Protein backbone atom coordinates (compact mmCIF):
# COMPACT_ATOMS: atom_id res chain seq x y z
CA UNK A 1 0.00 0.00 0.00
CA UNK A 2 1.09 3.56 -0.62
CA UNK A 3 2.20 5.71 2.29
CA UNK A 4 -0.27 8.04 3.99
CA UNK A 5 -0.60 10.38 6.94
CA UNK A 6 -1.95 8.67 10.04
CA UNK A 7 -4.09 10.53 12.57
CA UNK A 8 -5.72 9.36 15.78
CA UNK A 9 -8.20 12.00 16.96
CA UNK A 10 -9.75 11.93 20.41
CA UNK A 11 -13.19 13.25 19.47
CA UNK A 12 -15.72 13.14 16.65
CA UNK A 13 -15.29 16.87 16.02
CA UNK A 14 -11.55 16.51 15.74
CA UNK A 15 -11.97 13.57 13.35
CA UNK A 16 -14.19 15.61 11.07
CA UNK A 17 -11.78 18.57 11.10
CA UNK A 18 -8.95 16.24 10.12
CA UNK A 19 -11.06 14.75 7.35
CA UNK A 20 -11.98 18.13 5.93
CA UNK A 21 -8.38 19.35 6.09
CA UNK A 22 -7.04 16.27 4.29
CA UNK A 23 -6.52 16.15 0.54
CA UNK A 24 -8.16 12.72 0.27
CA UNK A 25 -9.01 11.54 3.77
CA UNK A 26 -10.76 8.39 4.89
CA UNK A 27 -11.97 7.14 8.26
CA UNK A 28 -10.38 3.97 9.62
CA UNK A 29 -12.58 1.76 11.80
CA UNK A 30 -11.66 -1.97 11.88
CA UNK A 31 -9.82 -1.60 8.57
CA UNK A 32 -10.85 -5.01 7.28
CA UNK A 33 -12.07 -3.66 3.97
CA UNK A 34 -9.97 -0.50 3.80
CA UNK A 35 -6.53 -2.03 4.39
CA UNK A 36 -6.96 -4.89 1.87
CA UNK A 37 -8.27 -2.33 -0.64
CA UNK A 38 -5.21 -0.16 -0.05
CA UNK A 39 -2.88 -3.13 -0.51
CA UNK A 40 -4.51 -3.81 -3.85
CA UNK A 41 -4.25 -0.10 -4.61
CA UNK A 42 -7.97 0.07 -5.19
CA UNK A 43 -7.84 2.85 -2.60
CA UNK A 44 -4.97 5.28 -2.05
CA UNK A 45 -6.09 7.87 0.50
CA UNK A 46 -3.64 10.57 1.57
CA UNK A 47 -4.81 10.53 5.19
CA UNK A 48 -6.15 7.79 7.47
CA UNK A 49 -8.18 9.04 10.40
CA UNK A 50 -8.25 6.24 12.97
CA UNK A 51 -11.46 6.38 15.01
CA UNK A 52 -10.27 3.94 17.69
CA UNK A 53 -9.21 6.72 20.04
CA UNK A 54 -12.67 8.27 20.26
CA UNK A 55 -14.54 7.30 23.40
CA UNK A 56 -18.21 6.45 23.24
CA UNK A 57 -18.33 5.03 19.71
CA UNK A 58 -18.37 1.42 20.85
CA UNK A 59 -20.81 -0.72 22.79
CA UNK A 60 -24.40 -1.90 22.98
CA UNK A 61 -27.19 -0.07 24.80
CA UNK A 62 -30.79 -1.09 25.36
CA UNK A 63 -33.06 0.88 27.63
CA UNK A 64 -36.27 -0.89 26.69
CA UNK A 65 -37.07 0.94 23.45
CA UNK A 66 -34.50 0.77 20.67
CA UNK A 67 -31.28 -1.24 20.59
CA UNK A 68 -28.36 1.10 19.97
CA UNK A 69 -25.03 -0.22 18.73
CA UNK A 70 -22.00 2.07 18.55
CA UNK A 71 -20.34 2.34 15.14
CA UNK A 72 -17.04 0.89 16.36
CA UNK A 73 -18.62 -2.19 17.95
CA UNK A 74 -16.96 -5.27 16.50
CA UNK A 75 -18.88 -8.08 14.82
CA UNK A 76 -17.80 -10.40 17.62
CA UNK A 77 -19.14 -8.05 20.29
CA UNK A 78 -22.53 -7.96 18.53
CA UNK A 79 -22.52 -11.73 17.97
CA UNK A 80 -21.77 -12.51 21.62
CA UNK A 81 -23.58 -9.64 23.37
CA UNK A 82 -26.18 -11.08 25.78
CA UNK A 83 -28.26 -7.93 25.16
CA UNK A 84 -28.31 -8.30 21.37
CA UNK A 85 -28.90 -12.05 21.66
CA UNK A 86 -31.89 -11.40 23.86
CA UNK A 87 -33.43 -8.36 22.10
CA UNK A 88 -32.72 -9.15 18.42
CA UNK A 89 -31.23 -12.66 18.24
CA UNK A 90 -31.30 -12.60 14.43
CA UNK A 91 -28.90 -9.65 14.44
CA UNK A 92 -26.47 -11.48 16.72
CA UNK A 93 -26.68 -14.49 14.43
CA UNK A 94 -26.05 -12.33 11.36
CA UNK A 95 -22.92 -10.92 13.01
CA UNK A 96 -21.72 -14.42 13.91
CA UNK A 97 -21.84 -15.39 10.22
CA UNK A 98 -19.56 -12.58 9.00
CA UNK A 99 -16.13 -13.64 7.75
CA UNK A 100 -14.23 -15.65 10.33
CA UNK A 101 -13.28 -15.30 13.99
CA UNK A 102 -10.28 -13.04 13.40
CA UNK A 103 -12.25 -10.79 11.04
CA UNK A 104 -15.10 -10.57 13.55
CA UNK A 105 -12.63 -9.45 16.21
CA UNK A 106 -11.67 -6.40 14.14
CA UNK A 107 -14.46 -5.55 11.68
CA UNK A 108 -17.08 -3.06 12.89
CA UNK A 109 -20.77 -2.49 12.26
CA UNK A 110 -20.24 1.18 11.37
CA UNK A 111 -17.51 0.35 8.90
CA UNK A 112 -19.62 -2.31 7.24
CA UNK A 113 -22.69 -0.11 6.95
CA UNK A 114 -20.77 2.95 5.71
CA UNK A 115 -18.99 0.83 3.10
CA UNK A 116 -22.21 -0.59 1.60
CA UNK A 117 -20.46 -3.57 0.06
CA UNK A 118 -23.02 -5.33 -2.13
CA UNK A 119 -22.17 -8.66 -0.45
CA UNK A 120 -21.91 -7.47 3.16
CA UNK A 121 -24.30 -8.96 5.73
CA UNK A 122 -25.13 -5.95 7.90
CA UNK A 123 -26.96 -3.94 5.22
CA UNK A 124 -29.62 -6.69 5.10
CA UNK A 125 -30.12 -6.52 8.86
CA UNK A 126 -30.09 -2.72 9.01
CA UNK A 127 -32.58 -2.43 6.16
CA UNK A 128 -34.68 -5.43 7.21
CA UNK A 129 -35.12 -4.08 10.72
CA UNK A 130 -35.82 -0.53 9.54
CA UNK A 131 -32.92 0.81 11.57
CA UNK A 132 -31.70 4.37 11.69
CA UNK A 133 -28.11 5.28 10.92
CA UNK A 134 -27.08 8.02 13.34
CA UNK A 135 -24.26 10.32 12.20
CA UNK A 136 -22.48 13.33 13.64
CA UNK A 137 -25.22 15.57 12.29
CA UNK A 138 -28.43 13.64 11.65
CA UNK A 139 -30.28 10.36 11.63
CA UNK A 140 -30.85 8.58 8.31
CA UNK A 141 -33.54 5.93 7.81
CA UNK A 142 -32.11 2.69 6.43
CA UNK A 143 -34.67 2.92 3.60
CA UNK A 144 -32.83 6.02 2.34
CA UNK A 145 -29.28 5.01 3.22
CA UNK A 146 -28.03 2.36 0.77
CA UNK A 147 -28.03 4.15 -2.56
CA UNK A 148 -25.81 1.94 -4.72
CA UNK A 149 -22.72 -0.25 -4.96
CA UNK A 150 -20.39 1.11 -2.25
CA UNK A 151 -22.62 4.21 -2.24
CA UNK A 152 -24.62 5.61 0.68
CA UNK A 153 -26.51 8.76 1.62
CA UNK A 154 -23.52 9.87 3.74
CA UNK A 155 -22.14 13.24 2.76
CA UNK A 156 -18.46 14.06 2.45
CA UNK A 157 -16.87 13.71 5.87
CA UNK A 158 -20.10 12.63 7.59
CA UNK A 159 -19.37 10.07 10.28
CA UNK A 160 -21.61 7.21 11.44
CA UNK A 161 -21.68 7.19 15.24
CA UNK A 162 -24.25 4.49 15.97
CA UNK A 163 -27.05 2.39 14.53
CA UNK A 164 -30.45 2.42 16.21
CA UNK A 165 -32.55 -0.73 15.79
CA UNK A 166 -36.22 -0.90 16.71
CA UNK A 167 -37.05 -4.21 18.38
CA UNK A 168 -38.95 -6.45 15.95
CA UNK A 169 -41.61 -8.97 16.96
CA UNK A 170 -39.46 -11.60 15.28
CA UNK A 171 -36.67 -11.72 12.70
CA UNK A 172 -34.51 -14.20 10.83
CA UNK A 173 -31.48 -14.02 8.56
CA UNK A 174 -30.42 -16.74 6.16
CA UNK A 175 -27.56 -16.51 3.73
CA UNK A 176 -25.89 -18.54 1.05
CA UNK A 177 -22.25 -17.78 1.82
CA UNK A 178 -19.48 -17.74 -0.71
CA UNK A 179 -17.59 -20.84 0.45
CA UNK A 180 -14.21 -19.09 0.42
CA UNK A 181 -14.88 -15.55 1.66
CA UNK A 182 -18.20 -16.17 3.44
CA UNK A 183 -19.52 -12.95 2.00
CA UNK A 184 -23.21 -13.30 1.15
CA UNK A 185 -23.76 -14.61 -2.37
CA UNK A 186 -27.32 -13.87 -1.33
CA UNK A 187 -28.59 -13.09 2.17
CA UNK A 188 -32.22 -12.49 3.11
CA UNK A 189 -33.34 -10.79 6.32
CA UNK A 190 -37.03 -10.97 7.21
CA UNK A 191 -38.54 -9.08 10.12
CA UNK A 192 -42.06 -8.95 11.52
CA UNK A 193 -42.34 -5.44 12.89
CA UNK A 194 -45.07 -3.17 14.25
CA UNK A 195 -45.11 -1.45 10.85
CA UNK A 196 -45.40 -4.73 8.93
CA UNK A 197 -43.30 -7.39 7.27
CA UNK A 198 -39.94 -6.24 5.94
CA UNK A 199 -37.79 -8.30 3.56
CA UNK A 200 -34.28 -7.05 2.81
CA UNK A 201 -31.84 -8.74 0.49
CA UNK A 202 -28.07 -8.37 0.27
CA UNK A 203 -25.50 -9.92 -2.06
CA UNK A 204 -27.86 -10.08 -5.01
CA UNK A 205 -27.89 -6.55 -6.42
CA UNK A 206 -25.57 -3.49 -6.38
CA UNK A 207 -26.73 -2.68 -2.86
CA UNK A 208 -29.12 -4.08 -0.27
CA UNK A 209 -32.76 -3.63 -1.24
CA UNK A 210 -36.25 -4.42 -0.01
CA UNK A 211 -38.42 -6.81 -1.99
CA UNK A 212 -41.95 -5.37 -2.16
CA UNK A 213 -43.41 -8.47 -3.86
CA UNK A 214 -42.27 -10.71 -1.03
CA UNK A 215 -43.40 -8.26 1.63
CA UNK A 216 -46.91 -8.10 0.13
CA UNK A 217 -47.16 -11.86 -0.27
CA UNK A 218 -46.00 -12.51 3.29
CA UNK A 219 -48.27 -9.82 4.70
CA UNK A 220 -51.37 -11.52 3.30
CA UNK A 221 -50.16 -15.03 4.07
CA UNK A 222 -47.01 -15.58 6.16
CA UNK A 223 -46.00 -18.95 4.79
CA UNK A 224 -43.39 -20.58 2.60
CA UNK A 225 -46.07 -21.24 -0.02
CA UNK A 226 -46.81 -17.51 -0.29
CA UNK A 227 -43.43 -17.06 -1.95
CA UNK A 228 -44.20 -19.59 -4.72
CA UNK A 229 -44.56 -17.85 -8.04
CA UNK A 230 -42.61 -14.76 -7.06
CA UNK A 231 -39.64 -14.11 -9.28
CA UNK A 232 -36.99 -11.43 -9.16
CA UNK A 233 -35.71 -9.69 -12.27
CA UNK A 234 -32.31 -11.17 -13.10
CA UNK A 235 -31.60 -8.01 -15.07
CA UNK A 236 -31.21 -6.17 -11.79
CA UNK A 237 -28.93 -8.77 -10.18
CA UNK A 238 -25.16 -8.91 -9.98
CA UNK A 239 -23.33 -11.48 -12.04
CA UNK A 240 -19.76 -12.60 -11.40
CA UNK A 241 -17.58 -15.70 -11.32
CA UNK A 242 -19.30 -16.86 -8.12
CA UNK A 243 -22.89 -16.75 -9.35
CA UNK A 244 -24.80 -15.65 -12.42
CA UNK A 245 -27.59 -13.09 -12.17
CA UNK A 246 -30.19 -15.82 -12.83
CA UNK A 247 -28.74 -17.96 -10.04
CA UNK A 248 -28.77 -15.04 -7.61
CA UNK A 249 -32.40 -14.25 -8.50
CA UNK A 250 -33.26 -17.88 -7.76
CA UNK A 251 -31.28 -17.88 -4.51
CA UNK A 252 -33.25 -14.86 -3.25
CA UNK A 253 -36.42 -16.96 -3.24
CA UNK A 254 -34.72 -20.02 -1.72
CA UNK A 255 -33.10 -18.02 1.09
CA UNK A 256 -36.34 -16.13 1.73
CA UNK A 257 -38.24 -19.41 2.08
CA UNK A 258 -35.66 -20.65 4.57
CA UNK A 259 -35.94 -17.43 6.55
CA UNK A 260 -39.74 -17.72 6.62
CA UNK A 261 -39.43 -21.33 7.79
CA UNK A 262 -37.28 -20.17 10.71
CA UNK A 263 -40.04 -17.76 11.72
CA UNK A 264 -42.93 -20.25 11.64
Amino acid at each position, binding site marked *: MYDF*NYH*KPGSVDEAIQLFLAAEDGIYLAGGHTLLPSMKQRLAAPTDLIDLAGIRGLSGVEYAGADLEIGALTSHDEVATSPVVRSVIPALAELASLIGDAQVRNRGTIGGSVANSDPAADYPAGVLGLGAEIVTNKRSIAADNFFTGMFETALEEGELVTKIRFPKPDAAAYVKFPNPASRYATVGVFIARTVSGIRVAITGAAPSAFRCADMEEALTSNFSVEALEGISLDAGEMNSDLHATAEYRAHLCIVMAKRAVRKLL
Partner: protein
Amino acid sequence: MSVSVQLNVNGKPVTVDCPANTTLVDLIRERLELTGTHVGCDTSQCGACTVHLNGRAVKACTVLAAQCEGAEVTTIEGLGDTDNLHPMQEAFRECHGLQCGFCTPGMIMSAVDLVHRESSINEQVIREGLEGNICRCTGYHNIVRAVETAAKKMRN
Protein backbone atom coordinates in the same frame (compact mmCIF):
# COMPACT_ATOMS: atom_id res chain seq x y z
CA MET B 1 4.86 9.67 7.15
CA SER B 2 6.73 8.08 10.04
CA VAL B 3 4.97 7.07 13.24
CA SER B 4 6.34 6.14 16.63
CA VAL B 5 4.57 3.18 18.20
CA GLN B 6 4.93 1.95 21.76
CA LEU B 7 3.53 -1.46 22.46
CA ASN B 8 4.16 -4.57 24.47
CA VAL B 9 5.20 -7.70 22.59
CA ASN B 10 5.38 -11.01 24.45
CA GLY B 11 5.62 -9.16 27.75
CA LYS B 12 8.39 -6.78 26.68
CA PRO B 13 7.90 -3.06 26.03
CA VAL B 14 8.91 -2.05 22.52
CA THR B 15 9.16 1.34 20.82
CA VAL B 16 9.41 1.38 17.04
CA ASP B 17 9.61 4.24 14.54
CA CYS B 18 8.21 3.03 11.24
CA PRO B 19 6.41 4.25 8.13
CA ALA B 20 2.67 4.72 8.73
CA ASN B 21 1.88 2.01 6.17
CA THR B 22 3.75 -0.68 8.16
CA THR B 23 1.51 -3.59 9.06
CA LEU B 24 1.67 -5.29 12.44
CA VAL B 25 3.04 -8.47 10.87
CA ASP B 26 5.84 -6.53 9.17
CA LEU B 27 6.70 -4.88 12.47
CA ILE B 28 6.80 -8.29 14.16
CA ARG B 29 8.83 -10.06 11.46
CA GLU B 30 11.04 -7.38 9.97
CA ARG B 31 11.68 -5.03 12.87
CA LEU B 32 11.46 -7.32 15.89
CA GLU B 33 12.74 -10.34 13.95
CA LEU B 34 10.12 -12.63 15.43
CA THR B 35 9.69 -14.80 12.34
CA GLY B 36 7.45 -17.45 13.89
CA THR B 37 4.47 -15.44 12.65
CA HIS B 38 4.08 -16.16 8.94
CA VAL B 39 2.66 -14.27 5.99
CA GLY B 40 0.71 -16.58 3.71
CA CYS B 41 -1.73 -14.65 1.57
CA ASP B 42 -1.33 -11.07 2.85
CA THR B 43 -5.03 -10.60 2.03
CA SER B 44 -6.62 -11.49 5.40
CA GLN B 45 -7.79 -14.88 4.24
CA CYS B 46 -5.31 -17.60 5.25
CA GLY B 47 -4.71 -16.78 8.92
CA ALA B 48 -0.99 -17.71 8.95
CA CYS B 49 -0.23 -14.28 10.42
CA THR B 50 -2.62 -14.67 13.37
CA VAL B 51 -1.39 -13.17 16.66
CA HIS B 52 -3.19 -12.03 19.79
CA LEU B 53 -3.91 -8.30 20.03
CA ASN B 54 -5.09 -7.44 23.53
CA GLY B 55 -5.91 -11.10 24.00
CA ARG B 56 -7.90 -11.70 20.82
CA ALA B 57 -6.84 -13.45 17.63
CA VAL B 58 -6.35 -11.05 14.73
CA LYS B 59 -4.79 -11.25 11.29
CA ALA B 60 -1.63 -9.19 11.70
CA CYS B 61 -1.41 -8.53 7.96
CA THR B 62 -4.61 -6.48 8.23
CA VAL B 63 -3.73 -4.36 11.24
CA LEU B 64 -1.46 -1.32 11.01
CA ALA B 65 1.41 -1.09 13.47
CA ALA B 66 0.15 2.42 14.23
CA GLN B 67 -3.19 0.97 15.38
CA CYS B 68 -1.34 -1.01 18.07
CA GLU B 69 -0.20 1.95 20.16
CA GLY B 70 -0.39 0.88 23.79
CA ALA B 71 -1.49 -2.65 22.86
CA GLU B 72 -0.47 -6.03 24.21
CA VAL B 73 0.63 -8.36 21.42
CA THR B 74 1.39 -12.05 21.83
CA THR B 75 3.05 -14.02 19.05
CA ILE B 76 3.77 -17.74 18.83
CA GLU B 77 7.17 -17.03 20.46
CA GLY B 78 5.36 -15.62 23.48
CA LEU B 79 3.20 -18.68 23.94
CA GLY B 80 5.92 -21.14 24.83
CA ASP B 81 9.41 -22.26 23.84
CA THR B 82 11.15 -25.50 22.91
CA ASP B 83 11.72 -26.54 26.51
CA ASN B 84 8.36 -25.34 27.76
CA LEU B 85 5.70 -25.83 25.10
CA HIS B 86 2.21 -24.43 25.55
CA PRO B 87 -0.37 -27.26 25.81
CA MET B 88 -1.65 -26.28 22.34
CA GLN B 89 1.84 -26.54 20.85
CA GLU B 90 2.39 -29.86 22.61
CA ALA B 91 -0.94 -31.18 21.33
CA PHE B 92 -0.17 -30.22 17.72
CA ARG B 93 3.07 -32.20 18.07
CA GLU B 94 1.45 -35.16 19.81
CA CYS B 95 -1.47 -35.38 17.37
CA HIS B 96 0.64 -34.64 14.29
CA GLY B 97 -1.53 -31.59 13.61
CA LEU B 98 0.78 -30.37 10.87
CA GLN B 99 2.76 -31.44 7.87
CA CYS B 100 4.69 -28.54 6.35
CA GLY B 101 4.07 -26.36 9.40
CA PHE B 102 3.54 -23.09 7.57
CA CYS B 103 0.01 -22.52 8.86
CA THR B 104 0.76 -23.91 12.32
CA PRO B 105 1.68 -20.73 14.26
CA GLY B 106 -1.54 -19.07 13.08
CA MET B 107 -3.58 -22.21 13.78
CA ILE B 108 -2.21 -22.41 17.30
CA MET B 109 -2.83 -18.73 18.08
CA SER B 110 -6.41 -18.98 16.76
CA ALA B 111 -7.00 -22.23 18.63
CA VAL B 112 -5.79 -20.79 21.94
CA ASP B 113 -8.18 -17.83 21.58
CA LEU B 114 -10.97 -20.26 20.64
CA VAL B 115 -10.45 -22.39 23.75
CA HIS B 116 -10.30 -19.27 25.92
CA ARG B 117 -13.60 -17.84 24.69
CA GLU B 118 -15.78 -20.90 23.98
CA SER B 119 -17.40 -22.51 26.98
CA SER B 120 -17.73 -25.91 25.31
CA ILE B 121 -15.31 -27.30 22.79
CA ASN B 122 -16.34 -29.97 20.30
CA GLU B 123 -15.52 -30.84 16.72
CA GLN B 124 -18.09 -28.47 15.21
CA VAL B 125 -17.01 -25.55 17.39
CA ILE B 126 -13.37 -26.18 16.45
CA ARG B 127 -14.04 -26.47 12.72
CA GLU B 128 -16.14 -23.31 12.68
CA GLY B 129 -13.76 -21.49 15.03
CA LEU B 130 -10.81 -22.18 12.74
CA GLU B 131 -12.57 -21.06 9.55
CA GLY B 132 -10.13 -18.16 9.35
CA ASN B 133 -7.10 -20.45 9.15
CA ILE B 134 -6.29 -22.37 6.01
CA CYS B 135 -4.11 -25.49 5.92
CA ARG B 136 -3.25 -26.92 2.52
CA CYS B 137 -1.61 -30.14 3.80
CA THR B 138 -3.47 -32.10 6.41
CA GLY B 139 -7.17 -32.00 5.74
CA TYR B 140 -7.76 -30.64 9.24
CA HIS B 141 -8.58 -33.96 11.01
CA ASN B 142 -5.44 -34.00 13.11
CA ILE B 143 -5.68 -30.26 13.73
CA VAL B 144 -9.15 -30.78 15.22
CA ARG B 145 -7.83 -33.65 17.36
CA ALA B 146 -4.96 -31.48 18.55
CA VAL B 147 -7.28 -28.67 19.62
CA GLU B 148 -9.61 -31.12 21.39
CA THR B 149 -6.63 -32.62 23.21
CA ALA B 150 -5.19 -29.24 24.18
CA ALA B 151 -8.55 -27.91 25.34
CA LYS B 152 -8.79 -30.72 27.89
CA LYS B 153 -5.30 -29.99 29.21
CA MET B 154 -5.86 -26.22 29.29
CA ARG B 155 -9.00 -26.67 31.37
CA ASN B 156 -7.43 -29.02 33.92
